[in-house]
């Protein structure tokens, strides 16, 4: 089985991450229940004729895909695989609202064309002129993990060398309104809601992260992407078995990166999982990125930089354990019965 390396990456999110890894610039937002992304100027790389029709998610996806590929020296990808939880919801809302407002008449094409979940993957391919395998996974909280699983299988067992994989999700007003109504987004912020949540709902956000996965290790490789796993149930035995498949035990995990989302609805799953790893450094990311279906992309982007730099910035830390070397990071993400794991090794 071939090894797979992360040779390029890029992200956009609630922190100024599109400029690179600069955690000293991160700002903790303890007031809002929904974070807005810090976005670059898209006009420099997307043609004006195309950009005027693009919703946020499409722009974030194209920008991060372009920069991840650039960092990996612009390989022609053998596949473009994108994960998204709710797809291009902004244009979906526009189209559905137009149906209501105009009493099912006067429906315009643009928002309909761009409202499908596979718009981002399609637009990336169009921008690049790439006719390779193009696929979008819509699988809730593990949409990115499922995309990575597909990429790993193709790289490890087929004759593929370079695959662009990423996750993107955007918000839209009606979606945020509905999520608040059903307690998916908090009504108000608690004092320490990511560490010890006291209310239902997450702090919501949006973002994109893309990665170039390749079978060749390069001088600028960030990490070895060893494995992913997703399931509707995750026992301690299942985690143990997953680690054993990669010749690891619980104590071999140097950093446990969890997606604690600040909701009492998901806290018990995170507490149970964290208890398996008493010897690991604990880190989290959603107090920085906010929660969205593919927020594990921000965690993966962060973990890659942490492995490469061999240092965990204080802003991510949940405990003060020290390790002489950071060799393995396990990213755990959970929401409403769905568990996702991403295993990384230093290279």
């Amino acid at each position, binding site marked *: 089985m071939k090894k797979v390396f992360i040779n390029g990456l890029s992200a956009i999110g609630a922190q100024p991450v599109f400029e690179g890894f600069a955690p000293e610039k991160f700002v903790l937002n303890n007031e809002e229940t929904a974070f807005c992304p810090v976005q670059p100027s898209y006009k420099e790389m997307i043609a004006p004729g195309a950009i005027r029709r693009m919703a946020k998610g499409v722009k974030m996806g194209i920008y991060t895909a372009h920069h991840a590929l650039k960092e990996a020296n612009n390989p022609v990808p053998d596949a473009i695989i994108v994960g998204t939880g709710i797809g291009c919801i902004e244009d979906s809302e526009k189209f559905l609202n137009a149906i209501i407002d105009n009493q099912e008449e*006067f429906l*315009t094409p643009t928002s309909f064309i761009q409202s499908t979940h596979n718009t981002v993957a399609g637009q990336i391919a169009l921008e690049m002129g790439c006719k390779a395998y193009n696929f979008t996974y819509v699988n809730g909280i593990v949409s990115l993990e499922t995309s990575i699983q597909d990429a790993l299988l193709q790289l490890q067992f087929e004759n593929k060398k370079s695959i662009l994989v990423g996750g993107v999700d955007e918000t839209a007003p009606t979606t945020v309104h509905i999520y608040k109504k059903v307690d998916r987004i908090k009504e108000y912020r608690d004092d320490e809601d990511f560490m010890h949540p006291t209310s239902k709902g997450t702090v919501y956000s949006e973002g994109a992260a893309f990665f170039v996965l390749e079978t060749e290790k390069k001088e600028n490789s960030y990490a070895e992407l060893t494995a992913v796993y997703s399931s509707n149930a995750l026992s301690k035995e299942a985690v143990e078995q997953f680690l054993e498949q990669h010749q690891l035990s619980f104590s071999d995990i140097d950093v446990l990166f969890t997606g604690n989302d600040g909701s009492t609805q998901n806290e018990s799953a995170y507490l149970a999982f964290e208890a398996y790893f008493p010897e690991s450094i604990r880190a989290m990311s959603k107090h920085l990125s906010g929660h969205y279906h593919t927020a594990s992309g921000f965690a993966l982007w962060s973990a890659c930089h942490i492995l490469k730099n061999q240092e965990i910035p204080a802003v991510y830390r949940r405990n003060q354990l020290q390790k002489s070397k950071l060799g393995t990071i396990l990213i755990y993400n959970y929401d409403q019965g769905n568990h996702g794991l991403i295993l990384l090794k230093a290279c």
Partner: protein
Amino acid sequence: MSDLKEELKSKIISVLNLEDVTTADIADADPLFGDGLGLDSIDALELIVLLDKDYGIKLTDPKQGKAIFESINTMAEYITANRTK
């Protein structure tokens, strides 16, 4: 007629999300498609909906569109002659 032309320019900028374009940038006789404003076939569909929704004009023959949407002048003339609201 000149009020209608200004109104059309504003609506086209808004409906087609023409960032960085102002009404002053669009001359009445400029071609809307091709070398002028650079609109394309998807924009043409948006303009057909605009005529129907805002002026009560239904274009049943798509071939008519080419002449009607040639410029702000031709659009304004056609709307003035055919509008039902």
